[in-house]
């Protein structure tokens, strides 16, 4: 399941977290909202962000 959580504190501090997206899909999922909300002040990729699809490796001994 793809999930986006927007957390807003009582001071108005806003953060957006994505889960369940593969690779850079997460960026596309939040791009419109980021623009609608204001200016991005930080953007931290998490391990799942760096997935770019299935890959096969072969090992030789």
């Amino acid at each position: 399941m793809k999930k986006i959580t927007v957390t807003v504190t009582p001071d108005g501090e806003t953060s957006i977290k994505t889960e369940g997206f593969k690779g850079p899909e997460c960026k596309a999922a939040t791009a419109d909202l980021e623009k609608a909300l204001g200016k991005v002040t930080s953007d931290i990729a998490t391990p799942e962000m760096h997935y770019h699809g299935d890959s096969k490796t072969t090992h030789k001994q």
Partner: protein
Amino acid sequence: MSHVVKVALEVKDLDSLRQAASLLGLEFVEGQTAYKWYGRSIGDYPLPEGLTSADLGTCDHALRIPGNPSAYEVGVKRNASGSYSLLWDFWQGGYGLQAAIGQNGGLLKQAYACRVAAKNYATKGYRVNVVKGENGTMQVIASK
């Protein structure tokens, strides 16, 4: 998790601002060009960026507390960039205004950000829930 983004809020969507104001018991008055405040600046606080003392008290729309004629009001003033500044006088808590919009307008900003987020994902076919988190936080959870 895929990525985590922090955003400095800018008010751009008047519909969402109207809805946020309504959630807090405020009335959005379209086209009101002056908002209620002390009436003159005594220079004890810095002015918002891009504004002069001549700008204080003027606005393009306003938010007010219905049924409280003593309360100060929030001026909604369009900036050159197309976003809006929210201006208000917090002297004596704005005679009730600060209780409604929160310290530094935090509750109004929170409600606004939640409305913008919910609207954004609802139009994209996500299932959207708005929930209260810990310590007064609100969360908009969009899933599909």
